[in-house]
């Protein structure tokens, strides 16, 4: 077998197997370097895979050489390619920038463990994305969850601990619900392979267990994806985690759960359950709308910059769900694109926050006055990513807003209502982003600014790069759009 054939496996294995090695690299610089190298390699692999599946083909890899329903197989299609890009990109970027901030927040003797856990989280997320086996997804979900609990718990503030404990409880409940659902489906079909499940669910006569299973899986994954009413763990966890960890997790963690949710509902249930599409929409759309409106409203009144952005993440999840719940190719394209663009925007924002946090201990808005004068580049990057989050034309965020609105337009009578929701959400985004911008630029400084200067160059460069990407993908979004399109087509035809 040539290397390309092995890539899906390597995608997972590279970070996974380098994690234990990192523990042994005692001098902390080495640990960081090793972790970053591994992350970069896996990002490169992800790029290669994305280019390979750009033409809509699917790469399949049989673990241990055992054929599909019996062994575990990995499969990479255009949808997973997008997620791979998001996850590995976020991992690589945040690790690349992480060192100064992490040195500041975590004692050097604990850093090898920390970076190793970080790599584990990365590999877990990647493993979920490429896996084509229901139970294998559970295993990797647990790897990523445990690892993310660890890296969140690295937060210096003591409030990190209750926050992450709550996350642990809710995350485990979610995973167990998922496990129950998978068990019920296995009981009715006798298989764990997703494609095989779909094939065999068709001729299951007693549908009740499958319905219950669908319910369990959807709720469990919604819990992990912080879908609106189940999001309570997000704000604290994001707020008190180490800043770079927030960058990484906010960019990709919940999205992966969302990805599994979409995969299941479209590739397994949609085709087999009678008018599941309708039930799904009826169940998800209200949550999405409520999520957008309420979470944005909360964000408008948050006083702490990280909490504010965390709430906005919940709202953004709502946008993705909204697109998904339209059960149409444009809607799914919009969702897939929004996954990508939001990762860019939110990652950039949190990177900028990390830059600020490197200088400002207290991240409440009223403490950040006059930051722009001292840290012009950071604030500029922040503004750009903020505009992208709002969806101002010329930035990446605009593309997905555009797709979403046009999808809503085509979705029939209730389309205008959805558009209204989307626009109101965007206006709220204008409000909360602008609150931060005014604080940064026009608020009177409170801290003694003698010592405050620009963030370390390492951090700053990555932040700037992400900001520029936000603009680049706003003007030349062809590649992600192509992936999103074929992903949507894939899912829909999977649903037929």
């Amino acid at each position, binding site marked *: 077998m040539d290397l390309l054939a092995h890539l899906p496996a390597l995608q997972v294995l590279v970070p996974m197997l380098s994690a234990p090695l990192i523990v042994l690299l005692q001098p902390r610089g080495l640990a960081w370097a090793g972790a970053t190298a591994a992350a970069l390699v896996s990002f490169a692999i992800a790029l290669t895979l994305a280019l390979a599946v750009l033409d809509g083909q699917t790469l399949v890899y049989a673990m241990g050489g055992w054929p599909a329903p019996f062994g575990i197989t990995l499969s990479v299609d255009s949808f997973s390619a997008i997620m791979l890009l998001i996850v590995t990109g976020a991992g690589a970027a945040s690790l690349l920038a992480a060192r100064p901030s992490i040195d500041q927040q975590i004692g050097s003797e604990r850093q090898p463990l920390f970076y190793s856990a970080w790599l584990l989280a990365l590999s877990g997320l990647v493993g979920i994305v490429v896996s084509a086996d229901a139970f294998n997804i559970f295993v990797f979900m647990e790897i990523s969850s445990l690892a993310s609990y660890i890296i969140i718990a690295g937060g210096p503030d003591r409030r990190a601990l209750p926050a992450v404990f709550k996350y642990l409880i809710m995350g485990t409940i979610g995973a167990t619900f998922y496990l129950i659902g998978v068990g019920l489906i296995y009981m009715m079909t006798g298989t764990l392979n997703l494609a095989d499940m779909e094939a065999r669910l068709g001729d299951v006569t007693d549908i009740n267990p499958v319905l219950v299973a669908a319910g369990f899986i959807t709720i469990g994954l919604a819990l992990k994806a912080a879908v609106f009413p189940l999001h309570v763990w997000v704000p604290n966890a994001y707020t008190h985690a180490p800043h770079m960890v927030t960058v990484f997790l906010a960019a990709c963690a919940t999205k992966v759960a969302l990805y599994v949710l979409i995969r299941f509902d479209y590739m397994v249930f949609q085709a087999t359950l009678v008018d599941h599409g309708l039930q799904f929409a009826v169940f998800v759309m209200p949550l999405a709308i409520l999520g957008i409106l309420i979470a944005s409203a909360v964000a408008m009144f948050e006083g702490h910059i990280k909490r504010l952005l965390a709430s906005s993440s919940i709202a953004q999840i709502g946008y993705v769900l909204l697109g998904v719940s339209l059960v149409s190719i444009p809607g799914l394209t919009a969702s897939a694109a929004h996954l990508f663009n939001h990762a860019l925007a939110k990652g950039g924002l949190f990177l900028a926050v990390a830059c600020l946090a490197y200088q400002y201990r207290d991240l409440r808005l009223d403490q950040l006055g006059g930051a722009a004068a001292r840290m012009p580049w950071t604030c500029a990057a922040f503004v750009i990513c903020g505009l992208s989050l709002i969806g101002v034309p010329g930035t990446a965020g605009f593309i997905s807003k555009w797709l979403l609105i046009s999808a809503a*337009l085509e979705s029939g009578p209730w389309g205008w209502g959805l558009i209204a929701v989307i626009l109101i959400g965007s206006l709220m985004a204008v409000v909360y982003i602008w609150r931060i911008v005014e604080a940064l630029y026009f608020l009177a400084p409170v801290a003694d600014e003698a010592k405050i200067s620009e963030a370390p160059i390492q951090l700053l460069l990555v932040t700037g790069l992400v900001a520029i990407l936000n603009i680049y993908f706003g*003007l030349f979004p062809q590649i992600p759009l192509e992936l999103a399109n074929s992903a949507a087509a894939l899912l829909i035809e999977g649903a037929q």
Partner: protein
Amino acid sequence: MIPETAILVAIVLPLVGALAIVLAGRIGPNIREAATAITSLSLIWVVWGLLPTLMDGGRPSVEVSELMPGLTIAFTVEPLGMLFAALASGLWLINSIYSVGYMRGNKEKNQTRFFACFALALSATMGIAFAGNLFTLFLCYELLTLSTYPLVAHKGDPATVRSARIYIGVLLSTSIALFLPAIIWTYTIAGTGDFTTGGILAGKLNDPEIGLLLGLFVFGIGKAAVMPMHKWLPAAMVAPTPVSALLHAVAVVKAGVFAITKIIVYIFGIEFLFAAPSSQWLLYMAAFTIIVASLIALRQTNIKRLLAYSTIAQLSYVVMAAAILKPLAEVGASLHMVAHAFGKITLFFAAGAIYVASKKTEVHQLRGIGRRMPWTMAAFTIGALSMIGVPPTAGFVSKWFILAGAFEANNLIAVFTIIASTVLNAAYFLPILYMAWFEREHEGGKEHGEAPFLAVLALCLTALLTLAFFLFNGPIIELESQVVKGLS
């Protein structure tokens, strides 16, 4: 250089200029001002270099990127845009001359940021002027909003920030909440958003929706300050005078009315719209705005606020002219953009000059100021007359065309509105002139002379332009007639 590149250069040049200004700002003010001057000069050279191509019917266009099928970033030169671009680039030069005098005379801080953002705003303006389709227009429109925000908030004290918040809030939210859906709607039904002569919506849309879409566009383009979307304009008066000039004369509001005109002409197509009764409301709306704004202006005591409301009224002239939906009126609309630009920029320069020289901001303080600042007040007078529409000023020409269009459409409301507003304009400008020239300044006013030389030079230039436009407007009219060529 070939026109296609010229377009791109015209858009990129100010960006480069902004960068140069930032860098030069590190070295020293004079270098910085030099950078501004050079940029604006070369911009004029590039833009006006496009005129000949246009005159002989060329429509050079260039596509930058295709975001998704049908949705492209593309630029095209056509008469309306050409006029706007030429106007803006020309006035930028004068405005920068004036700004140098003003900013230094006032010892403002952050001048580098000021000039840099100014250049950015110009780049966005060029983009708007040359936009080849709705999306590109929207893109540059938002960029203009964002790049002018720092200018409006220049002073940075709480009051200013609050007003600036109103400015950005109204403009951004209207554009996102109304303009964007209108655009997407257009794209979904027409499949494209390219500006094409005769419109792209003909036959694709039924009657009530036409009115709705038109409304989304008109109110979505908050820069046009059609009531009730005008609140931001008086709020933006906190900005330094050159910025007000930029907002009122050079770029922002012009961008608004320009966008509306362009959409009416190239997206709806005037005949298609003329056929649709549900588009009538726009005319009434504009007329209403004109009258009400003039009435409010009548009651203003602060010079700049008075000018602001007069701007609102004048803008609605353009909108109304466009809404008359007759070729002559369309020409009138474009002419009025130019005319108002010249007149209003003169007035603002004058007001600013008065402020710099004597720190006077209220109307009643102007008693007898004509003796102290003859040049300034002379220019002010010319501007005011142009606003009223008295020959031999620019205002007369445009009003003439608009009236002609109104009669052609035998649209009595328009005619009445124009006459009434002319009276009102006279009612609030003439007293000022009288006060300034013929009344005696009451005792104890502090001694002051003319404003800094550069400022006075600039405002005299614009005043001259106002007069010149009355005499030499042939080529412009000919150019603009191309827009409606072939339409009865």
